[in-house]
């Protein structure tokens, strides 16, 4: 690097600022923000599940008491709130995933399926696994 180049002043740039309407004033920003916010309800659900595993390890009485506590109105409201955001996260994750296929248009081969199918396929896979897991948890086949 030449001395003249090294001492050249940096190009002045404006400080970073949020786009107009961020975070909730425009639907694309809103979707993005809600998607990031899902981390909080999902972490709450995971913590509840780990506490449940702890109760399971403490014996039958603790397990039944923990299960009964989850059915109280306050806990149920929290779980339904978390479930709504978790579903939003999963469906959006699957739907956004179709753009990975779209990104390959160009020098690489185009996606093997129409784009909506590329979005529906992972969501269909998620729903199938959810059903299988609920059936296993419920012991409905045994």
């Amino acid at each position, binding site marked *: 690097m030449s001395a003249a180049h090294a001492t050249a002043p940096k190009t002045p740039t404006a400080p970073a600022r949020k786009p107009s309407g*961020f*975070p909730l004033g425009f639907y694309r920003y809103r979707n993005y*923000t809600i*998607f*990031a*916010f*899902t*981390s*909080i309800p*999902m*972490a709450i*659900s*995971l*913590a*509840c*599940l*780990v506490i*449940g*595993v*702890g109760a*399971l*390890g403490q*014996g*039958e009485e603790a*397990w*039944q008491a923990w*299960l*009964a506590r*989850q*059915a109280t109105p306050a*806990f*149920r409201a929290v*779980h*339904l709130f*978390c*479930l709504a955001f*978790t*579903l939003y*996260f*999963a469906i959006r*994750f*699957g739907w956004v995933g179709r753009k990975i296929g779209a990104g390959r248009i160009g020098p690489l081969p185009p996606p093997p399926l129409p784009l909506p199918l590329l979005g529906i396929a*992972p969501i269909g*896979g*998620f729903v199938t*696994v*959810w*059903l299988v*897991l*609920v059936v*296993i*948890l*419920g*012991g*409905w086949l*045994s």
Partner: protein
Amino acid sequence: MKLIHKLEPLWWILFGAGAFVLCFVLPALILGVLVLGDSSLMADGLSYERALRLASNPIGKLFLIVVPTLGFWHCAHHFRHLMLDFFGHAAAPIGAYGGYGLALLGTIVTVSTVLAL
């Protein structure tokens, strides 16, 4: 924050893996255990003996370690960026150290809880 930035690929691996795992299992776990766990629908499936049998076999233990652990790291990374989006770079250390610190705590608690089964 230098170390946090240096480890960015690690956070991204945990974030991506966590997202993938959560999409596949978390809605079912919330619905099946947290929402319907005490109902008659799940009474047989989540009886103490069966639940303990499911959770304490090697595959069950692996499942119960992998899902919450990756999930916590996923949530931590998303939380870090949520803090950045709302509060700017001033909140970056809180988002990073707070989020990843809680994920580390969650990992330790999860692993010790599951291994104690």
